[in-house]
């Protein structure tokens, strides 16, 4: 059950990242055309968009982990207040290993999600891109 929820959440996240990057590429079509006119190669454009995706994934993962830690503490406190069962250990436990796995997983998914938008940006033809961006 938990694995299924996690898979769906990961898929939604990947689709969200792809959508954000595609929108960003669309909005900057003219800019990408100019960069190509100035001498940027396919790989250079691909790298710019891909690195941007990596940053989005890394920022999202960091923010998500911070929210998870805060959320776990609040949940722990709420459970203790509601259910006085005499347990002294943490009821909701987030280990450093889990956080690192989440961050690395999000970065991997982000890199995967960035391939298609980055390839689309890299394949833009300069004249059409500049014209569309005006």
């Amino acid at each position: 059950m938990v694995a299924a929820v996690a898979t769906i959440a990961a898929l939604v996240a990947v689709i969200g990242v792809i959508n954000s990057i595609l929108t960003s590429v669309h909005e900057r079509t003219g800019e990408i055309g100019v960069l190509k006119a100035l001498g940027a190669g396919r790989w250079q454009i691909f790298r710019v968009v891909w690195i941007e995706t990596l940053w989005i994934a890394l920022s999202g993962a960091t923010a998500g982990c911070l929210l998870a830690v805060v959320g776990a503490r609040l949940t722990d406190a709420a459970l203790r207040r509601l259910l006085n069962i005499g347990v002294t250990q943490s009821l909701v436990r987030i280990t450093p290993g889990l956080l690192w796995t989440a961050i690395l997983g999000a970065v991997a998914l982000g890199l995967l999600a960035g391939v298609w938008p980055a390839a689309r940006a890299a394949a833009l033809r300069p004249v059409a891109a500049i014209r569309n961006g005006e």
Partner: protein
Amino acid sequence: MKMQDDPVIRGRGLRKHYRRGSETVRALDGVDIEVRAGESLCILGPSGSGKTTLVNILSALDAPTAGTLAVAGRRVDGLAERELVAVRRGVMGFVFQQFHLIPTLTVAENVALPLLFLGRRANPSDVERVLRAVGLADRAGHRPRELSGGQMQRVAIARALVVHPRVLFADEPTGNLDGSTGDAIFDLFERAVRQDNIALVLTTHNLALAARCDRSLTLRDGRIAD
């Protein structure tokens, strides 16, 4: 003027035809053209006459549907986009009517961009040299939004010149500027042509600017009219 015999750009029978619905548009219809180092060539013509199409083809930004094009003695028609990028890098500089500066970068970073694409480390002295040449050395740390239209076009010229191009393409470079600013911008082009022996290909509707070029040609319906 130090004009050289071998043209930097030589186009023969350049055509650009494409389909729009059931009709064939002849954006360019058999143009022969040569541009030499140290020469300024102005392309005139009404809107839709093929000026921008011709500049796009000469600058290897677009491919002709027929005809031959040689840049610095090398045939480039029929090359793949990857090879065209290599042709443009270092050989060509571009100045656009809408300036097309990257808004999130500073003036100096905008100017340094073509150097990065060439794989060179952005040398601050190169950037400073061209910014000084266009009179904007004191604006290096500013963002494009903090500049006037004329200043933005000066930055675009500095960006084009930083790689020491052999040919400079300017599509309606003064179209968004008032008359005196346009004249000042053309002074910069003229200096690049005379001092650095660069070939300049420029499109404009401004007859006064055209008169300042070494040669001009008029396009009409995709053909040279005179």
